[in-house]
């Protein structure tokens, strides 16, 4: 027993200097990111937290007044309802769509698969704003290349298309899907590539069909990647700002300027001039996103397994 412990200790002793050197390198690598994280992530968050307790009028300690202001705002529940609906529509679309396409490409390894991967990636290659400009063209029945479809459904104006709140949700979900699906497809496909050939071979020998291979073998292995997809897209969708803002401009203000909670926060900061309330709303958004983030990470075991 003692003899068995001895060599273990000695290797640990030997490894120490190397580990110190390693941690030095680690610091060098992580340092710049850590500094950036502090400056543009942590510092503003702490600043928001402090501002959220400062009175918009006198500048003194306001207690929970700003939180009360925000929680009782007439757009608060409506705006959270909007992003809730959007996430309900868009996230499943994203998970099923992206994972489904990745599995299809993975099943068709070779030239055809690579070609299709490229095709699927194309819409994502257009940078965010360009993508939305294209969408605005598609949505306007007067200039749209799919005008015949709009005409067939009796739509004559972008205002008309966006007049129904549910249409806005579908339009935003479609916009976000086409913008993000391409890049996420690459990530999920990368995950599938990491499934070792031995595992696939073994499953095949055991008589797995293509469907069973995807459902029973590949999916459980890439679960952390899917968790990552859900986490990142949830955070983006929950804090959505740009897309409804641009859509509102294009549709001559038919969308509420406070469609999403983040837009409500923007209204408080830049139109009403109540930075306390804006900060309080940001803190609420941060807490919810963090809580759900932790939940997703622990449930999928993302950090341990990847």
């Amino acid at each position, binding site marked *: 027993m003692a003899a068995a412990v001895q060599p273990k200790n000695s290797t640990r002793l030997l490894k120490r200097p190397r580990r110190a050197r390693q941690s030095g390198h680690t610091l060098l690598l992580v340092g710049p990111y850590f500094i950036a994280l502090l400056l543009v992530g*942590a510092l503003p968050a*702490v600043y928001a937290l402090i501002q959220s307790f400062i*009175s918009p009028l006198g*500048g003194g300690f306001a207690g929970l007044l700003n939180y009360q202001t925000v929680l009782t705002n007439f757009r608060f529940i409506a705006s959270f309802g909007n992003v809730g609906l959007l996430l309900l529509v868009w996230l499943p679309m994203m998970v099923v769509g992206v994972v489904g396409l990745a599995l299809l490409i993975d099943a068709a390894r070779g030239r055809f698969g690579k070609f299709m991967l490229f095709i699927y990636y194309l819409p994502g290659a257009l940078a965010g704003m360009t993508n939305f400009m294209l969408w605005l063209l598609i949505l306007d029945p007067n*200039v749209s290349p799919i005008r015949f479809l709009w005409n067939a459904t009796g739509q004559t*104006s972008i*205002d008309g298309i966006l007049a*129904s709140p549910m249409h806005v949700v579908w339009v935003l979900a479609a916009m976000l899907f086409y913008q993000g699906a391409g890049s996420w497809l690459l990530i999920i496909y990368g995950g599938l590539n990491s499934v070792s050939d031995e595992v696939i071979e073994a499953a095949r020998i055991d008589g797995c069909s293509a469907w069973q291979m995807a459902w029973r073998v590949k999916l459980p292995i890439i679960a952390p990647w899917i968790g990552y997809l859900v986490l990142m897209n949830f955070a983006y969708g929950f804090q959505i700002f740009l897309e409804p803002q641009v859509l509102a401009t294009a549709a001559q203000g038919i969308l509420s300027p406070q469609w999403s909670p983040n837009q409500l926060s923007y209204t408080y900061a*830049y139109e*009403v001039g109540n930075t306390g309330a804006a900060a309080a709303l940001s803190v609420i958004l941060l807490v919810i996103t963090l809580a759900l983030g932790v939940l997703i990470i622990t449930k999928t075991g993302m950090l341990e397994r990847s």
Partner: protein
Amino acid sequence: MRLKMSALLGVVMPMLLLVAGCGSGSSTPSANTKTVQAGPLQVWVDAPRVSAVKAFEKAYPKIKVQMNIINDNIGNDALRGKFELFNKSGSGWPDVIFFPTNSDISWASSSQIGYTANLTNLVPKSIQNGYAPAAIAACKVGGKLVCLRNDDAADVLWYNAKLFKEWGYTPPKTWPQYEALGLKIAKQHPGYYVGIIGSDYTFDRYFWGSGCPANQLVGANKVKIDLTSPNCTRMVNLLDTLLKAKVVSTVGLFSSQSKAVAQKLVMTPGATWYGEFEFKDAWNIPAGQITSTTPLTWPGFPYTGDEGGGLWGMSSHISGKMQQNALKFIEFVTTNPKNQVALAPTFPAYGPDDNAWLQKNVLSSNYFADPAQVAASFKQAIKMVWTGHPYTQFDPDGIWDTTVVPALEQGKTLAQVWPTYQKDLVNYAQLYGYSVTQ
């Protein structure tokens, strides 16, 4: 673990203190006693006003001007945020600004922002008296003159004189006559329109001149919002009747579909700038068809509405030579014929420039069917704008677009969406810190 925690605290604590320092420093209202006295004149304008700045530089070559062109989208909501930040940092304000949206004057002149200078004793009385009271009313806030009006955008009645002649109609003078003619057109010439009530300026076009209290100021930061007033409901009934008869369209004034509707537009109330900018430029109606006449009114209520018409403000953070130069600037751009007659495309709010402008832009133009009648209607309308509708930080017209237009698009009537509109107006008024009586 303990080590990590203390390291983390070591990093975070100084940061917290730093931020707390910033926080308390910036949250105290800045003392705006310090004023700028020298340097080039900082002027913020939208793109159409660049020629006015150039004309000033030519007329006053000794005054150095630094021009900054700002986003002229109506409802450019980032502007106020900039002024909040200038107030916090105690510098950065423009010396003169052309407000992209008229309602900007409400926050710019508020005690919270306190940007606009009190011009009551700075601008000569001779200039102040050159404005018709209705034309300068938007610049009178709390008894002080806080801006100078650039152009006037009073509503007149525009109509297609060619169609009127062909069909044997005479232009209506009152709203009930307008409604009756609208119904007649619905029967005799289906497919034609007598108005547009989608996004942009619809509230101003139809309800301002009707005296509808959607944001009536009854005290400092106190508004009365009562859409159940007969002054509002008479117009709701009129428009619902015309909507049912399919003679008013729900397209937006500036939308891409408005051009198609305009080809079938027999008449519409509209601002003085509709002739040049809508009928001629945006809708391409051929010359010799369009003309305007005196505004539509309700019996016993001889007022009209107003759709825009820009405002110039001057900084309260300047003094001495700087202030004198800024004054020269706003007086030049609003009153001098070198700008208002020679360059300005819109009808000057400053009365003494009106005749020369009308001569150049209306009487000498071959676009209008009856130029003399157009000129007379402009001069008449400018005096008739109802002064009971102020600019407030919440804009009934913008809220019309987000609340009423989607309902109309879904086939609802105005009467059906009216309670929601009232509720939204109250909500937005409260969001901007007004106390509301209903």
